């Protein structure tokens, strides 16, 4: 059981602390989305019903559902046929905020195990080009399996260091930097998740900043970079975004990361003794009690020029 006192350092920034403390120990609902490469949401609903899979539509995203009391949805027939993909609800946010359009060239810098890459492929409808990268080739096997099952024919897979992506890879219309983090927001599915130590922060923040910087460099003018983590720590969220905004002040700006129907909080403008760029208000913080999900952070950069 997660101990709410572990997250005491965030008490001053979480408005409904008691609700938060209660929510982080509830089991996390399982969510799925219909794979538009193979089916429609109405056809999937019919199949789920035939297979006795009880699902409630998500209010903010068409074709996505919360499952009710369904054991092992990853072994059911519609899943095996690639008709749906399992993905945590809050983890669907970054791809929604990419604002994808058919035919775009998209980079997923830290793709494993691949649910967000799959969501990108499904949204693009097998048009355009997706490069899915992750340094961990073992975790990329899960991504390959998902792509095979879903029928995604427009994805290239590579295993490079995202902090040092070669320029030869070309530029992209959209880049997702869902960076490695301390995963504090995952306590509902991972009871061992805890607040990071200073050493963890130092290690992770160096990588996170480098990945985001490289992503901004590889983005085309007019394109978007979405930065996301599943942690509450401002050191890994606002601090990283703020430092990159300062470094690329004449090349990019933050645009509002908001999803109608999905309750969340704005990014922080102050943390401990630090003040952040006012644009951080456009970032999105999600706490588990707000929409019965895991914790998350998203910031959307618009590249204005190179």
């Amino acid at each position, binding site marked *: 059981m997660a101990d709410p006192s572990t997250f005491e350092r965030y008490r001053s920034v979480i408005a409904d602390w008691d609700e938060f403390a209660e929510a982080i120990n509830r089991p996390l609902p399982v969510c799925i989305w219909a794979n538009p490469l193979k089916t429609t949401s109405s056809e999937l609903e019919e199949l789920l019903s035939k297979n006795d899979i009880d699902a409630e539509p998500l209010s903010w995203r068409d074709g996505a559902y919360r499952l009710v009391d369904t054991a092992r949805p990853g*072994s059911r*027939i519609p899943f095996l046929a690639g008709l749906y993909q399992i993905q945590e609800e809050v983890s669907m946010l970054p791809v929604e905020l990419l604002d994808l359009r058919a035919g775009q060239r998209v980079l997923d810098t830290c793709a494993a195990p691949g649910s967000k890459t799959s969501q990108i492929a499904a949204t693009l409808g097998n048009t355009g080009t997706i490069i899915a990268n992750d340094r961990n080739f073992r975790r990329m096997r899960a991504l390959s399996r998902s792509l095979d099952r879903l*029928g995604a024919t427009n994805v290239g897979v590579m295993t490079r260091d995202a902090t040092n992506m070669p320029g030869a*890879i070309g530029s992209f219309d959209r880049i997702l930097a869902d960076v490695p983090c301390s995963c504090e927001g995952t306590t509902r599915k991972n009871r061992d998740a805890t607040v990071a130590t200073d050493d963890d922060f130092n290690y992770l923040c160096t990588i996170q900043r480098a990945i985001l910087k490289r992503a901004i460099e590889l983005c085309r003018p007019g394109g978007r970079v979405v930065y996301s983590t599943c942690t509450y720590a401002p050191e890994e969220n606002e601090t990283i975004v703020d430092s990159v905004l300062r470094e690329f002040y004449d090349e990019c700006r933050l645009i509002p990361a908001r999803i109608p129907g999905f309750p969340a909080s704005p990014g922080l403008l102050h943390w401990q003794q630090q003040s952040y760029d006012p644009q951080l208000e456009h970032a999105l913080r999600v706490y588990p009690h707000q929409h019965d999900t895991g914790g998350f952070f998203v910031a959307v950069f618009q590249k204005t020029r190179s």
Partner: protein
Amino acid sequence: MNLTAVDSADPDLADTAKKLNEQGLTIVDRTAIVRHICQRFRFSDDLFDGLIFARATKAIIRAISRPIDVTASPALDRIGIDFLRIDMANPRMTTSAAMTWARYAQQNAVDTTAQQCEAFLGRKRFCVNDTQLDTCTGRGFVFIRHYGHGLGVGFLESTRRSDDNFRRVRSMYPRAYAADLENTSPFGNPL
């Protein structure tokens, strides 16, 4: 199967072919591939128009969206999905291809019952009935579907009717996939 590389002078494909070549893939002429699979499964002629077929290894042809915007480097570990195994006398579509395109097949696709489907996913042989044989043209590879959606490939041993010893399908569901399903029921039944 006799597969020739596409003419690199084809203006639509020349640049892509060059870049894929640097990635170790050779775009091949689609004619023989499409003819082979359409003959067996009676797909509509234009079903694969949005795809490039590229040889990834001696054994595998990949299906890749067209157009695709890849660069010559850095090296990709994979692109597109495995489509056709060609290292056999009678090339067969892969499980991933069957999962994607089996629903469009107008012949040699078996719509399974729950029991047959469970047998297939457990890599066991199963018998088919006369009705299921109606759209099967003869011994060879067939798609295995459930509620019309593709799950993989099987091998129909014979279409001889009224003889359970012959009209059987051998499951070619991948071992790794089947292993993942051990101790579970794909229909959610208690074990």
